[in-house]
């Protein structure tokens, strides 16, 4: 769990997000933990959206990722598709 790329050492945002990917649901720990390593490749809007997703309650977020309750916004759906592509 410690692949410390050079960029990670410098980027405080990413460091904060990595910790926020620690959740109460194991499902999310795994999915978000995998995804956050690809965070650097997102555009600014997607980064903002990811931050917003992390503020959702665990159960709501998992329902969105697993497709039980589809996301409402288009750009959210697009980001979820990227998260689900892992």
């Amino acid at each position, binding site marked *: 769990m410690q692949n410390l790329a050079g960029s990670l050492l410098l980027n405080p945002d990413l460091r904060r997000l990595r910790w926020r990917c620690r*959740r*109460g649901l*194991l499902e999310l720990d795994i999915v978000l933990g995998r995804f956050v390593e690809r965070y650097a490749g997102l555009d600014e809007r997607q980064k903002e959206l990811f931050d917003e997703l992390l503020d959702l309650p665990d159960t709501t977020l998992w329902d969105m990722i697993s497709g039980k309750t589809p996301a409402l916004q288009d750009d959210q759906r697009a980001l979820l598709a990227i998260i689900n592509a892992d």
Partner: protein
Amino acid sequence: MTISKRTFDVVVVGAGGSGMRAALAMSEAGLKVAVLSKVFPTRSHTVAAQGGIAASLGNVTEDNWHWHMYDTVKGSDYLGDQDAIEFMCRAAPEVVYELEHFGMPFDRLDNGKIYQRPFGGHMQDYGKNPVQRACAAADRTGHALLHTLYQQNVKANTNFFVEWMALDLIRDEDGDVLGVTAMEIETGEVMILHARATLFATGGAGRIFSASTNAYINTGDGLGMAARAGIPLEDMEFFQFHPTGVYGAGVLITEGVRGEGGYLVNRDGERFMQRYAPNAKDLASRDVVSRAMATEIKEGRGCGPRGDHVLLKLDHLGDDVIRHRLPGIREISLKFAHVDPAQAPIPVVPTAHYMMGGIPTNYHGQVVAPYKTGPEEVVQGFYAVGECACVSVHGANRLGCNSLLDLLVFGREAARQIIEDLARNPHPKPLPPDAAERPLARLARLDTQKEGESVAEVGDAMRHVMQAHCGVFRFPDLLAEGVKQIGEVAVRARNTVIKDKSRIFNTARVEALELDNLIEVAQATMHSAAAREESRGGHARDDFPLRDDVKWLKHSLYFSAGERLDYKPVRLKPLTVESFPLKARVY
């Protein structure tokens, strides 16, 4: 390093169901309460609980607390303390109604009363017929519980320290507990929280195993801190396993899959449960199925290159049945096992789920240890509740839905006890000069260590040793070797290196500090399991297949210093009723 200091009446470590229930009562009583949590409170692991809260409301079918008590004592395989179990089962309806008043959105009957679901092990009339005893809020009981308690705590002015990690307990030379040293994860700042009462509610430690249903935060920090401060850990050999966690991930596949006709196969494609349980086959009870799986793996019939799992086959059910009758299973399988269950079987292993042992307490939440005059002397200023505590109401095996109940009953009771104790002790004892010495030394080591293994490497080694040597079915040769190997891993854990030495959100440092706690729990579990020569509840040994009440009707106490074991009697006498006599635990 400079460290700041703040003083509170009470410091609570942990903002799951148990910590927040206790904090609420204390804040409402006017105490100045600090609650620390590694993650935002509503993201505590309690959020994962779906099944419900056990309470004999009798809203659907006739029920009473004495039947609930019987189920709990029997479920515990008679290792549960009957005074604490009586206390919990009697208080259950009250704490559920309190929660209803706090705004918990329970499922309801048409007449407006709380709806109750059936659940395995919940019986009427001393084990005769199933009863509906579980109170739930749809499939998100844990989420609703955390949300409700968090809102109430905000109203009651509880001081939350979010993304703060407690590092070590502060004890003075009398052995009294005076607070904790903690670190803010965002800044790396270290602070002493000085308090007249310290309550641990840090949850479980399922992450000591490679197969675990627990979230990554469940690293047994409370147990590690207690162990380092000289407090023993009780009944650590007892873990509850779920038979079907996804191999390599731990995410649960519900029993419903086997109910719909899914079955387990070994490397030869054999439906092996037919050999172990000719009638019930794959629908035999959790422990029977888990042990059969472990036996197949141990005897070389496991699947995959390492032969370390079995397969859950449901492709014969067809895509349609899987999609419609087993919602969510396809997604879990695709995401965590990378297989489409309509095409290929899902790799599964018995997976650690719940820790019955923990920090020894009495039923008032006071931590008790054999350190001056008797086996159960109160450690002044120190309390523990929830999964990190061993009251012991779960004994050798937890009854479903009794954990959330335990959080509420003992969270509330510990608060009552603390309020009473603090009325007698209006002034905090002075801090010892070396209050923060241990945690500062641990941090300094991580800052200066230049060579060594990575935390991930040592953590993997620990999880592998625990899984292979101390899993759901235990064998004498594996346990003996396991004691040796886990000792070696513990030495390696003292010598880890982190490359990132910075302060801001240093996840690597947090994980190194968590490993210190995990390894304490792993050692306690391995040593206690190797010593207990019987099978009882969650502890199943191949060489001692039966429960042995003559020699082993007693609680284990593991002391980290000297890796020493001691024992204390089970409290068989309830508070007001007759003791339930010992019987074989058959269902």
